[in-house]
């Protein structure tokens, strides 16, 4: 699936930036992390991660409206350790709320890269899968997983919060099983992802990896 289309030098070029700006951004490549050497520790860690899912409060599309009821009395995702977090540095789950326009995609990438691993992506709705009703739009991406690794899809247009809750529980299961390693996948196929991203984002004026 992943074809290397960019060079794999150790440093990024940050070529979208001017010379002056290049010294203001880090140009280090992201690195993959190994599981803890002790299996029990890794399992325990995964259990903790699964039970403390902090969702980045970034409504990226129409599906963002489905995230709000999660915290209400009816759905109460707090029960599962889900909480909203306004800064990507502290979040562990990124819910792509439906369609992702090119302009938003740029911000999604930036925010995703600023999250600290392990981090998980839930793609909500049909649009991230194949464009959905926006399949022929001039500014909506059709296959979201070309640009960021997705750990879980919740399809539908629009999936109701119940489905979202079910999806979150599904994600927890996957995390506990140690199957969610999207962050590493992204790092390992970094060049492929980058070339895809740059193919659609034409004014790339941010660093190649947003630390």
């Amino acid at each position, binding site marked *: 699936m992943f074809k290397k289309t960019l060079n794999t030098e150790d440093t990024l070029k940050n070529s979208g930036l001017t010379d002056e700006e290049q010294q*203001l951004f*880090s140009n280090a490549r992201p690195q993959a992390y190994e599981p803890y050497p002790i299996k029990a520790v890794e399992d325990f860690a995964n259990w903790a991660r699964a039970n403390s899912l902090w969702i980045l409060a970034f409504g990226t599309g129409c599906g963002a409206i489905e995230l709000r009821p999660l915290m209400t009395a009816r759905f109460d995702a707090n029960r599962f350790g889900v909480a909203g977090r306004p800064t990507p540095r502290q979040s562990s789950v990124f819910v792509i709320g439906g369609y992702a326009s090119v302009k938003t995609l740029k911000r999604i990438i930036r925010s995703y890269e600023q999250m600290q691993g392990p981090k998980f992506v839930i793609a909500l709705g049909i649009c991230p899968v194949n464009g959905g009703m926006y399949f022929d739009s001039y500014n909506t991406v059709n296959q979201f997983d070309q640009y960021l690794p997705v750990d879980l899809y919740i399809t539908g247009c629009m999936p109701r919060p119940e489905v979202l809750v079910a999806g979150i529980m599904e994600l927890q299961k996957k995390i506990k099983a140690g199957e969610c390693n999207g962050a590493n996948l992204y790092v390992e196929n970094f060049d492929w992802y980058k070339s895809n991203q740059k193919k659609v984002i034409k004014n790339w004026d941010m660093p190649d990896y947003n630390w």
Partner: protein
Amino acid sequence: MVATTDTIDIFLQPLGIYILALGVGFLIPLVYRVNRNSAILVFFTALLIMIVIAGLNLLAIINGASVMDIETAGIKPPFSINLRFGLFEGACVLAVNTVALLGAWHYLPRLKQHAAALLLYLILVMGINGMVMTRDLFNLFIFIEITSIATYALIGMERTAKGLAAGFKYIMATSIASAFYLLGTIFIYYQTGTLNIDDIIANQQLIIGPIGFIATLFILTGLLIELKPYPANGWGLDVYETAPGGIASLISVGVSAGVFFALYKVLPIMDLYLTSIAFIGGFTFLISNFIGLKQENTKRLLGYSSIGQMGLLTLVIALLVQLDASAHIPLIIGGLFINHLFAKAGLFWLAAIVDRKNIKDWSSIAKHPSLLILLCILLTALVGLPPFPGFWAKWELVMLLASEQLFGWITLILIGSLLEAVYLFRWFSYARNVESSESVEKPAEVSVSFLQQIPIFITGLLLFAIAYVMSRFMNVDNQLIYFPLMAGFAIWLIDRLNVRVKSLIMLLAVSIGGYFLTKDLEGINKLFSYLLIGGGILVSFATLYRHDDRKGFYPLLSVLLLSLATLLRAQTSLEFFFAWELMALSSYLLVMLGRNKQNCDPGIRLGNDQKNDQKYNQINAIKPALIYLLFSLASAYFILVGFAVSYSATGNYFLFSLGDSGTSTTLAFSLLAIGFIIKIGGFGLHIWLPEVYAEADDDFTAILSSVVSKAGIFGLIIIAAHLGVRADIGLNPAYVLGWIGILTATFGALMAVFQEDIKRLVAYSSMGQLGYIVTGVALMSHLGWVSAMYMTVNHFLFKGILFLSVAGVILRTNERFMYKMGGLIKNMPVTFTFTMIAIIAMSGVPPLSGYGGKWMFFNALMDKGWYWIAALAFFSSAVAFLYMFRLLQTVFLGQRKLEHRKLREAPVILLIPQGILIAIIFVISAYPKILIDVISTAIDPWISNTLVWKGTAMQAHYGYWDAPLIMAIIAGAWIAPLILLLLFAKTMKVQKVEQFNIVYAAERPRRPEETHFAYNFYAHYDRAIGFVVRPRATAFWNAVIEWTHSFAASLRIFYNGNGQTYALFIIMYFVGLFLVNGGLAL
């Protein structure tokens, strides 16, 4: 042979002066025709011989010869005219003749063009000599006329329309005055039948009734008019303005001296008018100095100063005669007179050779060090700063007046002196003002030959010499008080050496000198000697970081530091005051050496117009320096009066007897406290402080704040010790002092919060922190004083570090506005660390040294029951966090500017003193007992020790404090989580990122300037409570200045330049005097 000696002896009698003047005078036109140069030679020889005659005779009198009465025409008085040559006459004649000689030298280029000019000059000098020496009323009239005519003729030599008009007004006015005088003489003669002054004095009971009244009034008016009293003096000012410098100086000092002496002679028959004379003198002194404020014409300004000084002399002589204190005449009148004579003459000559009409154009001498130094010396002398004669005279005068309880006059004299200092030093400020390159009208450089400066230089030397002689009479430790000046002079001699060499020599000299000066001190003085001298040298070491030449900096710095040492050593209030004034003067000059990037109007408007400053980037130390001097002088005058009050009660100058002031204690304490609080920058009187700290050189600001400000604290503790504890004054002044202190702390902190300029921020912070110390001193308890001293030491430590690190930051970034910096921690980690530690020490957060001070302070406040002050102290120390964080955040943290990415760490020379101070902070923090024991020992003689130690813990009535244990616990609490974090960091991949790698709401930062939150950092705080810190004090003082200037302007309405009006004023002046003295009742 014997006959020759006799002849010489006879010739060298005072009468020789006249013979010489007349003889040579009429010889000169002859010689002039033959050879011009010989005429000049003859002229100078004559003047020189006059000096020799006066000098030899004066020496004889000082050595015990009797007063010489010279009879003329071989008949005894009263039937013939006689002259007297006593001590006063001799001194006066010698001084006048010296000035005349120097003036002739100065004025030679013009004088030598006419034989008549040489002749007139000699006649004029002779006339003055005559006025001084004659004892005959009518003869006196003749000499006055001779002088007037000669003066008029000399003025007329300048053939300008204005000059001629002025000359005409002069002759008109003096004629009217002479007419008055002559009428008076006639009436006196009518009543007493004699013209001899001694006879008249002996028979003054004959001068009675309306005729006697009118007679004396006429004589008085005639003489007073010649002294140019306000408002009948417009003609005199015109003369000063238009007459050439050589002549103006002679009129100002010579003629006035003669007339003044004449007045002195006839004073014994003026008993009736003494009060009037005093008022006239005082009024003239005050008003002239007021008007001087508005003056920009150099010579007219000097004229006002002259008239003012003569007014002061008139006032003082009348008071002295009234008080029957003629024993003080030599020191007070002599001192004031000589001071005025030489300084004013020198200034007139300087004004003449520089030849800049408007004082604003004097910046053309800014590059002439010799002229600047001369100007500075003469102005300093004229204002009465040490070591010049005026200083001693002023001291004596104030002490005398205080002991007679004449505080009204003291106030008048000091206000007048302050006003005079304002316009004189404003002039100096203009002269010091280096023009910027953009300035449109750049005044041409003056070219002055060395020869031209010699007369002025000689007057300067004479002033020093006379001052030294005077100080011999003042019962002070000469070697002690002159030591700083000597050292400064010595350093000045090597000022041309390499900056490194001379600075090291200076440091060495000050160390040795300071050591010997302070080695046998004890108690509080010893403690302060560590701070002021040791600390001063340590902080001064940092001045080495600059590579530029810094002419004048090191001599002045050595004077400053050593005057601090003499301040500590002072045994008497006079020595203390001398050292205090010397300190003020040297620090003023040092401030003035500060940055001068652009010229600005050094008018004395106050205030930090930050918006404007930013806009024009005006950085200029001249205006703040002037304000600094004024506040220093005001502070010194308060201290002077305070000492005087104490002296009036105790009768001696010793500091240790301050406590015996009895009922005057409260007044003395209050006055002295106000004086010191001005120096510390207390609430309401602080406005000078931020500007001075901001504009002085960065390294000198460190010295100012960490060292020099402690002198004020020292003074406060000294007076609190002597006056507060021993005399057990009531609680009230101390309580007020406590409030002033805490308000200073609160408002200093609040003001600091809203500053954009880093130096202003630190300056306000310094002021605020000193506020706690003032309150600590005001507590008058052992714990209070220990806390005050502890905080003093701490203030020295953290302010030294802060100002030096700020100096480093400014050096590297070349910026002062904090929002233009940011992120410097990456470039200057050491400076950041030092600053951070200093700030923690300042804030009072445990475990560093600030906590101890705050803890003791709070406990002492609670002990005393000053709860409201304690609450405010809490609040202000919380507010302090705001500006402390702002300093660190906006300068060192946040976003670094692109142009700052390549900056280097501050120079090592700046870091070394900071490092030493940091080490001391840590030692004191971990084990404060070593410091507190020293402090406690110093304080114990004054207040009984109340400290309780339990192991390492200190116990107070309320609380307890175990510094080493706290240090250990906090270290443990800090290290444990650090280890935890390091352990977990091992399990992560930690990436070091750059400054723009921040969460920015999914966008990216564009420019560091936009991303750095720094400008108007506490806008919300300003919105909430900013209204309490609107610069009210500044507005108030500006209003005072504005009002004073308008008042001064309104006083000038009498001077319309019209001769008729002036004549009318003179007549009306007489009528006024007549009415005021009860003429109608007769």
